[in-house]
């Protein structure tokens, strides 16, 4: 009895692919192509505008590719000190925050993934419940304030030290990807739980650590709300707050463009700067994205197993 596989059906299928199926395939490709264009066009437009001449941008002459190619906007953006301080701060929050996040997640995930842990269900329930209910913004704010974390870098790191969603991903990973026999074998050899955690589990969890780091790092990089809540000291502002000031509140510091005397040129440059800023702010994420993509997909799948 030879099993019928897709491959063995295909030639026949192709002949039979008339009427409904052919129309379906054509419609499917058309719809997906339109979708692709809709998603990618705004991204290309931002990129091209940032590399064009200011007057071309505000008069709408940029359609797909840069017009009168110029890197003036980038020169201006990088000559703005607040951008650099924002970049530095965001980098700090992303690196230190992610380090704390990953450590906390792994510390919790290992014991919680052990089926023989007494009280495991209670602990898990305690973590899970916080996904669906929370004390709210004000009590959290008051807590952070009372702990003296306001206007410190820790305000953006400690209150978000753990995400339960990522913890679930980690628990699922440990349960499904690390063979249970390893634990039994090492226990037979007298390996303690600490030793097992450090010497066996951690080295085997590199894909997990990659997934977690990426999720957390992107979260920190894009974080805006916590900084808005807890920081008033400008020296601590992450990039997103500075971006908000420029892109949304339109508070372009005129010292940034002081050498430009003419109003129209200044306005054109202002628009140009915004496009360049969008690119500059998204570059770190976009650079790691192609490498990270498969890890993200993997992470989502791990998360979906648990539900």
């Amino acid at each position, binding site marked *: 009895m030879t099993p*019928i*596989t897709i491959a063995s*059906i295909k030639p026949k*299928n192709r002949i039979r692919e008339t*009427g*409904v199926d052919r129309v*379906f395939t054509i419609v*499917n490709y058309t719809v*997906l192509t339109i*979708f*692709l264009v809709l*998603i*990618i066009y705004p*991204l290309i*437009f931002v990129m091209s505008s940032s590399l064009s001449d200011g007057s071309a*941008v505000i008069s709408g002459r940029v359609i797909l590719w840069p017009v009168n190619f110029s890197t003036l906007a980038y020169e201006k953006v990088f000559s703005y000190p607040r951008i650099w301080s924002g970049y530095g701060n965001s980098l700090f929050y992303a690196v230190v925050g992610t380090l704390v996040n990953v450590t*906390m997640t792994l*510390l919790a995930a*290992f014991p919680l993934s052990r089926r023989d842990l*007494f*009280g495991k269900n209670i602990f898990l329930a305690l*973590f899970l419940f916080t996904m*669906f*209910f*929370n*004390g*709210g*913004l*004000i*009590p*959290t*704010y*008051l*807590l952070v304030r009372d702990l003296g974390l306001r206007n410190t870098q820790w305000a953006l790191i400690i209150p978000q030290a*753990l995400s339960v969603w990522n913890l679930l991903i980690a628990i699922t990973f440990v349960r499904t990807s690390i063979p249970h*026999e390893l634990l*039994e074998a090492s226990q*037979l050899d*007298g390996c303690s*739980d600490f030793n097992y955690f450090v010497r066996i589990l951690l080295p085997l969890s590199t894909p997990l650590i990659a997934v977690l780091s990426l999720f957390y790092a*992107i979260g920190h*990089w*894009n974080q*805006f*709300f916590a900084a808005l*809540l807890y920081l008033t000291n400008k020296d601590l502002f992450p990039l997103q707050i500075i*971006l*908000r000031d420029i*892109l*949304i509140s339109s508070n372009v510091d005129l010292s940034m463009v002081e050498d430009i005397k003419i109003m129209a040129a200044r306005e054109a440059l202002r*628009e140009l700067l915004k496009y360049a*800023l*969008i690119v500059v*702010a*998204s570059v770190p994420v*976009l650079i790691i994205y192609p490498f990270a*993509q498969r890890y*993200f997909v993997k992470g989502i*799948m791990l998360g979906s197993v648990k*539900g």
Partner: protein
Amino acid sequence: MATVTTSIARPRPQTQAGVGQRITTAWKQIRHSWQLYVLLALPLAWLLVFAYYPMYGAQIAFRDFLPGKAILASEWVGLANFERFFASPMFERLIKNTLVLSVYSLVVGFPIPILLALSLNQLQTGLFKRTVQMVSYAPYFISTVVMVGMLLQFLDLRRGPVNLIVQALGGTPVLFMGSAELFPSIYVWSGVWQYTGFSTIIYLAALTTIDPALHEAAVVDGANRLQRMWHIDLPGILPVMVTLFILNMGQMLNIGFEKTYLMQNELNLATSEVISTYVYKTGLAGGVANFSYAAAIGLFNSVIGLILLVSANWASQRVTQKSLF
């Protein structure tokens, strides 16, 4: 597996600490794996402080809390803060705006990723499929601030490309961002642009678990692609759909603060003020910090969210025999 272990372990108990290893009582079990509890201690302590203490602190919603005073030292006022909220003219507006945004998001944002996943699933693995996936995930990584910044650029009254096109076609420019009427649509459809691709991942993963034999049998029986999609693919991802739908229900009132807040301006406030932004404004951003009142609104929001989640779960249990918990 466990029986194998014990049968191996039994012949050589001398390698282990003693006979008392085969433990039945809870205390001994805890002592045996004390190292696990040590590992768990820090995350658990963090959870109690940063997730559970605020729940305890939420009682200021029932008190007249003044900054600088201890929570328990503040006067107990019962439901006064809630009554004030229900009676205020903002109540109806906040609930309406919040529901409009979440129902609109759900109606549009829930089926589109499913359709996209089903449609992508029909393609053979190749350059086109990979390109669509890669490109469609990308907007997910853009920060909310940049997303709103892009909206402002694109929809600008005088210089935005959208209005330039409108003018080129002979129309009058539209004040997109300053329109209360258009706000929900801009909010929802920009969300579709940003999240649709990423949301398909979970459905595509579910689609890969469908037994190919089902499709093969259907092909033999003469089913066309559309029929196979309807009768095989869709039922195959139904459990995932139900799970995500329940989770979405729980988030019904939690309209993202960041995007709404950033998109707000004086002109669109009539439809853009939602519970989360109002809590922030009354509690923290206003001149007079009204902690108790804001906390009451926040708590109301959390409780309704929990009720919605539990009811969606219950309803789903009844209708589809599938539930989260």
